[in-house]
């Protein structure tokens, strides 16, 4: 694998205390242990650390360490952009490099929940501003002038009255000896020149020429490859195995039991380790393994649906309540009760799961793609029985993640096998492993009840979610947490509303999947709002506007998308349109689907999404993330869905777990709203409203209400 250029050790130890931030111990950064992604850092010359994020080097120039792992969500560019803005450097001229995994230096680096920008915007501005002020102080000391008489522009400090200049490179060593300011002054947002623009992302060229390094591309000298056979029934227990044929495969070195933990469940496997991946995979095929799957083989999608339906009779836990729903429902002139169902979904990032771990006596190293570098470090320290400081995480670009790479399970297998063999081990999952082992997005049953008064005004709504809870998968506690209620819009002005949950506990592992429970609940909720609008004989977009008249951001979004899509134009023959909205990660989204009937089939013509995520750091990143959300949302609506038979997943690979392909991809338009609210999430919020916008459009065109995903678009 590529490793970082070595930069000579500079021993500048500083403690930077930034208001609202963790303590940053600024000192020598061990470049040789860096993740492999470096852009244009060509020099091995001495350099100076200004703080944990900014390194200035006499020949390579300015390098910004990005502490948020990149999985396609664009933080490799957007986080350094925020620092560069306040630092007064041209983003085109800086190098960007992945920071080490170090909670003490960088706080929690886990990239989940569309939180990188919202959680770091203020902090990154302070980091950049503090570094800039430190450089200005260094210049003013050099010139014996007041700091206030100097300013910074384009990586240069300038003395206002004389026009004297010193570059950041010339000032770096002096600056690195100074204590950064506690309260750096931040720019007025109207003076932003980088935030709000879309410079070419620096990781892109390497993603067109094969140079970008993903986890699976790493290799370590002497490394063994492992392929692991596991029970297709998830919690099956290993009874026995015969490895004689496996060991006869040339290149196979070991056959070993292994295990990983997924949300409290121990899942067992038999690993074949060999000197090439191909030999390991061949050896695995030659294994004969006996599993005890107990009565788990009785489970099927049908049985789960029946279980959920039965469970829906339970009262469940109340997460949120206003007014008295039962009372108005009992006496309402118009009542509706319907159910919606969604399936298990797999993340299927294009890069199959993998991990390299080299566990030595007193230290441990990991190479691979992870959303959760600090969590991996803690896990490996625990597993190897060593201090966290002795664990080094080399995190790479991720070939997609969507939540799957926040879990440590694959690294646990690699660590277990490395400890057992004393060798570095790369565990490589096949696509079949990915699809049949999980964890998955939970399937769900949503029961919605609504009441209208005699004038068609909604007066009551109950939304009950029946599903597994990521946060409560083992043990005796039978209450669901409010996490399972994500994506249910309580901003609607419906006077009597109650949100409930009924927990199901199954042996099937579930986890976070792009936008999590919003992806299922929003389908149900926004379909149901549409059903209420139909019952009230109102335009579905106007119906939402009237129920959100006090909500400035939803109102602006709905009006913007109505205008962009010509919502109020008389419909063309054989076309339909549907709308849906959501709030996810403090971002507000409206989606409109436009469809047409063609030769007896329904064709998705265009999806338009309006997204309000407050101050936008990089509009193109918001756009492409939302484009991706549309494709993933449509895929989950009418292409993919996992089914269970005999306790195991039926869909094994992309041949029957279908993904949207280019020929099926409709036109997508994204409207990025402009305002001055605090920045909020960009990676997930576009996904939840896509499915209900589409099914609402199908109702608009055909009068057929789709309440179960995935549906077959050709059969509508």
């Amino acid at each position, binding site marked *: 694998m590529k490793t970082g250029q070595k930069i000579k050790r500079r021993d500048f130890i500083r403690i930077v205390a930034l208001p609202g931030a963790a303590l940053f111990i600024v000192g020598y950064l061990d470049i040789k242990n860096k993740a492999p992604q470096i852009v244009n850092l060509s020099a091995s010359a001495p350099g100076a650390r200004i703080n944990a994020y900014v390194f200035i080097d006499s020949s390579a120039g300015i390098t910004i360490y990005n502490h948020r792992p990149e999985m396609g969500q664009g933080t490799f560019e957007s986080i350094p952009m925020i620092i560069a803005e306040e630092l007064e450097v041209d983003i085109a001229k800086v190098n960007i490099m992945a920071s080490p995994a170090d909670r003490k230096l960088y706080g929690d680096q886990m990239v989940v929940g569309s939180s990188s920008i919202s959680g770091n915007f203020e902090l990154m501005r302070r980091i950049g501003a503090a570094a800039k002020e430190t450089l200005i102080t260094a210049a003013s000391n050099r010139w014996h002038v007041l700091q206030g008489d100097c300013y910074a522009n384009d990586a240069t400090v300038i003395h206002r009255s004389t026009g004297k200049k010193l570059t950041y490179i010339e000032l770096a060593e002096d600056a690195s000896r100074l204590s950064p300011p506690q309260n750096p002054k931040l720019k007025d947002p109207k003076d932003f020149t980088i935030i709000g623009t879309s410079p*070419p992302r620096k990781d892109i060229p390497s993603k*067109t020429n094969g140079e970008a390094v*993903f986890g699976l*591309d790493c290799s370590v000298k002497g490394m063994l490859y492992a392929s692991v056979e596991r029970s297709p029934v998830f919690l099956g227990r290993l009874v026995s195995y015969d490895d004689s044929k496996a060991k006869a495969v040339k290149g196979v070195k070991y056959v070993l039991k292994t295990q990983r933990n997924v949300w409290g469940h121990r899942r067992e496997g038999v690993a074949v380790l060999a000197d090439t*991946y191909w030999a390991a995979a061949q050896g695995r095929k030659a294994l004969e393994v006996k599993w005890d799957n107990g009565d788990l083989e009785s489970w099927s999608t049908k049985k789960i649906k029946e279980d959920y339906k039965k469970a829906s009779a339970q009262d469940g836990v109340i997460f949120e309540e206003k007014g008295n729903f039962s009372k108005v429902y009992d006496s309402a002139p118009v009542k509706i009760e319907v159910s919606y169902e969604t399936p298990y979904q797999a993340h299927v990032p*294009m890069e199959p799961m993998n991990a390299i771990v080299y566990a030595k006596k007193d230290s441990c190293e990991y190479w691979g793609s992870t959303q959760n570098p600090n969590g991996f470090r803690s896990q490996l320290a625990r597993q190897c029985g060593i201090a966290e400081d002795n664990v080094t995480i080399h995190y790479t670009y991720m070939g*997609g993640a969507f939540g799957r790479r926040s879990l440590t399970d694959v690294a646990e297998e690699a660590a277990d096998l490395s400890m057992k063999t004393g060798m570095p081990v790369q565990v490589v999952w096949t696509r079949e492993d990915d699809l049949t082992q999980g964890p998955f997005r939970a399937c769900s049953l949503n029961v919605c009840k609504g009441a209208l008064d005699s004038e068609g005004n909604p007066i009551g709504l109950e939304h009950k979610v029946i599903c597994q809870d990521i946060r409560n998968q083992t043990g005796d506690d039978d209450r669901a947490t409010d996490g399972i209620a994500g994506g249910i819009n309580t901003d609607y002005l419906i006077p009597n509303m109650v949100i409930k949950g009924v927990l199901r506990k199954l042996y099937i592992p579930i986890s976070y999947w792009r936008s999590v429970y919003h992806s299922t609940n929003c389908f149900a909720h926004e379909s149901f709002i549409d059903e209420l609008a139909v019952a009230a004989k109102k335009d579905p977009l106007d119906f939402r506007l009237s129920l959100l008249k006090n909500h400035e951001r939803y109102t602006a979004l709905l009006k913007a998308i109505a205008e962009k899509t010509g919502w109020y134009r008389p419909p063309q023959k054989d076309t339909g349109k549907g709308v849906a909205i959501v709030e996810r990660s403090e971002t507000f989204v409206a989606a409109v689907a436009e469809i047409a009937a063609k030769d007896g089939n329904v064709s998705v013509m265009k999806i338009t999404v309006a997204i309000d995520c407050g101050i936008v750091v990089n509009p193109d990143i918001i756009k492409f993330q939302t484009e*991706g959300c549309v494709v993933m949302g449509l895929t989950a609506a009418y292409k993919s869905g996992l089914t269970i038979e005999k306790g195991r997943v039926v869909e094994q690979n*992309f041949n029957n777990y279908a993904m949207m392909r280019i020929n099926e991809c409709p036109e997508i338009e994204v409207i990025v709203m402009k305002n001055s609210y605090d920045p909020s999430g960009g990676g997930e919020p576009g996904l939840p409203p896509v499915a209900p916008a589409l099914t609402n459009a199908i109702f608009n065109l055909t009068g057929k209400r789709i309440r179960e995903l995935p549906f077959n678009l050709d059969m509508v």
Partner: protein
Amino acid sequence: MASISLTVNKKKYQIDADPEMPLLWAIRDLIGLKGTKFGCGMAQCGACTVHLDGEAVRSCVTLLGRADGQEIVTIEGISDNTSHPLQKAWIELQVPQCGYCQSGQIMSAAVLLRENPHPTDQDIDEAMMGNLCRCGTYTRIRKAIHRAAEIMNG
């Protein structure tokens, strides 16, 4: 085991390997070119697409024995200095997100443009439907192929 000779990106390699091994693993693990990706192992996703004597093939199901004596081009060999019109267009339109599938996308698109310098949307869909992108970059891929055609045709 057999001795297999391959020309990859104009460089000759002599490999001693199982002729049943898919070309993908020979390129990645024996030759060490990691730009060609493993995605599904059954020619469903296109991440492993390379050119075998000029044709786009899924290297995950192409047996090494079949490639013996033939000329292979991988993403690393498609241009010098990232200068192929497709690479320029991919950068201009900021196509990749995670980037993992993009080697395969570009290798498929390169054959399309060689055979059809002025592809329509439908031509693009037909040529590219074997390449999955879970990040959903399809609309940009379509635009970038048109743009690459423009660059190519001057």
